[in-house]
């Protein structure tokens, strides 16, 4: 037995004792940075325009001029917005763990379960590689298959980062539509899949393996730990996502500067009945990070693409991804995968039509 004082004993349920910078020291810093952030954000557009005309000598109405101004404005704007959003969302997410979600959902039966699973999916982060452990963990503990599917659809499709970015860029209405329709699709898809009683289309090993529901670590995070996690989250996510973002903004800039308005209206407008299924068909095999697709959404909407079609495209891109499908193949038999993708895709198409119709 050691005689030395233990400076880092991990007592279950209590935060570790090692010295850690206080919440208010780090938090105070951030609070001061916020007004500065707001100021810089406000100045982005005029600065971008000034740089385009002054440094590059371009007319803002010309193709190159408007494309470059869009890029110079959007790139820092999206990065700043993303950082702020990820900071807040990651902080909130430290309060909701997969174990919580699983335990809550295990006790809900029927449609309520689908609804709650869809709502939870909004606020939990979703890494494709965790899809399987998560799926097994839910199903084995008794969460109904349909409810698990509602969660699996909502988690990637209603991306919390994308949600707040849409809020920041387009306002409550569009962000609300995105969240609402995402939840609706997740709810319906899971409910339908539950009714189809496809439990026998699970790969047999899922139910055969031993499962342990108790293993989760009992560590309760201190506030400063949550803040640290949030700051680390910003570094991780922005660090991972910025190439996708720049590509997305580049595409957006191209659309903004070079694609004539009539073109978009023709392809993605309300008049053509096939624009919605086409948008979904194109979107499903494409994979982009949620943050990367938003500049494209912005450019499309700016060029007169219909809201329903654009939303459908966005949801198809981020909600269904080829990597995730390949991973899910390990637990779901092919027929169930096809049903899963089809139900979600049809749901997205219906949402697209609905919003083209009512907006």
């Amino acid at each position, binding site marked *: 037995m050691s005689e030395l004082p233990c400076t*880092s004993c991990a007592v279950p349920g209590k935060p570790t004792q*090692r010295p850690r910078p206080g919440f208010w020291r780090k938090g105070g810093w951030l609070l001061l940075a916020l007004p500065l952030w707001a100021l810089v954000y406000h100045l982005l557009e005029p600065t971008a325009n000034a740089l385009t005309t002054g440094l590059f000598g371009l007319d803002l109405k010309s193709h190159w001029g408007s494309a470059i101004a869009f890029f110079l404005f959007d790139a820092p704007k999206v990065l700043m917005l993303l950082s702020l959003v990820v900071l807040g969302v990651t902080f909130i997410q430290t309060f909701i763990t997969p174990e919580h979600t699983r335990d809550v959902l295990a006790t809900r039966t029927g449609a309520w379960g689908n609804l709650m699973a869809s709502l939870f999916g909004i606020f939990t982060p979703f*890494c494709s*590689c*965790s899809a399987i*452990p998560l799926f097994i963990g839910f199903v084995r503990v008794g969460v109904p298959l349909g409810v698990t599917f509602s969660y699996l659809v909502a988690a990637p499709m209603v991306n919390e980062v994308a949600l707040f970015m849409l809020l920041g860029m387009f306002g409550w209405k569009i962000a609300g539509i995105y969240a609402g329709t995402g939840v609706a699709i997740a709810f319906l898809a899971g409910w339908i899949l539950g009714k189809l009683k496809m439990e026998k289309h699970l790969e047999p090993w899922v139910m055969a*393996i031993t499962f342990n529901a108790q*293993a989760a*670590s009992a560590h309760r995070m201190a506030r400063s730990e949550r803040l640290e996690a949030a700051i680390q989250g910003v570094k991780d996510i922005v660090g991972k996502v910025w190439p996708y973002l720049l590509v997305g903004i580049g595409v957006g800039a191209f659309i903004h500067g070079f694609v004539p308005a009539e073109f978009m209206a023709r392809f993605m407008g309300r008049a053509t009945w096939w624009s919605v299924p086409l948008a979904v068909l194109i979107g499903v095999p494409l994979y982009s990070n949620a943050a990367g697709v938003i500049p494209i959404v912005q450019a499309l909407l700016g060029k007169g693409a219909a809201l329903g079609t654009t939303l459908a495209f966005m949801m198809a891109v981020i909600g269904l991804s080829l990597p995730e499908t390949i991973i899910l193949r390990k637990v779901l038999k092919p027929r169930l995968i096809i049903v899963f993708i089809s139900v979600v895709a049809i749901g997205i198409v219906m949402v697209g039509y609905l919003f083209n119709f009512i907006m």
Partner: protein
Amino acid sequence: MLIEVFGPGCAKCQTLEKNVHQAVEQAGGDHAVVKVSDYAAMAARGILSTPALAIDGQLKFQGKVASPAEILTLLKG
């Protein structure tokens, strides 16, 4: 000590494994590092999100990529 890194092989789990090796080097002493990619094994331990880490059979965390410094603290503690 036996250190187990759980993950199916995506970038995050590889980073965690790398960080573990770094921490083990810094800590010195006799440690075995094992990478577990089998889903059945993960389910048997109750893991819901990857990457996850266990030391001497006890699950320390799941769903995050710990830095070498954090892992070092866990090794010492």
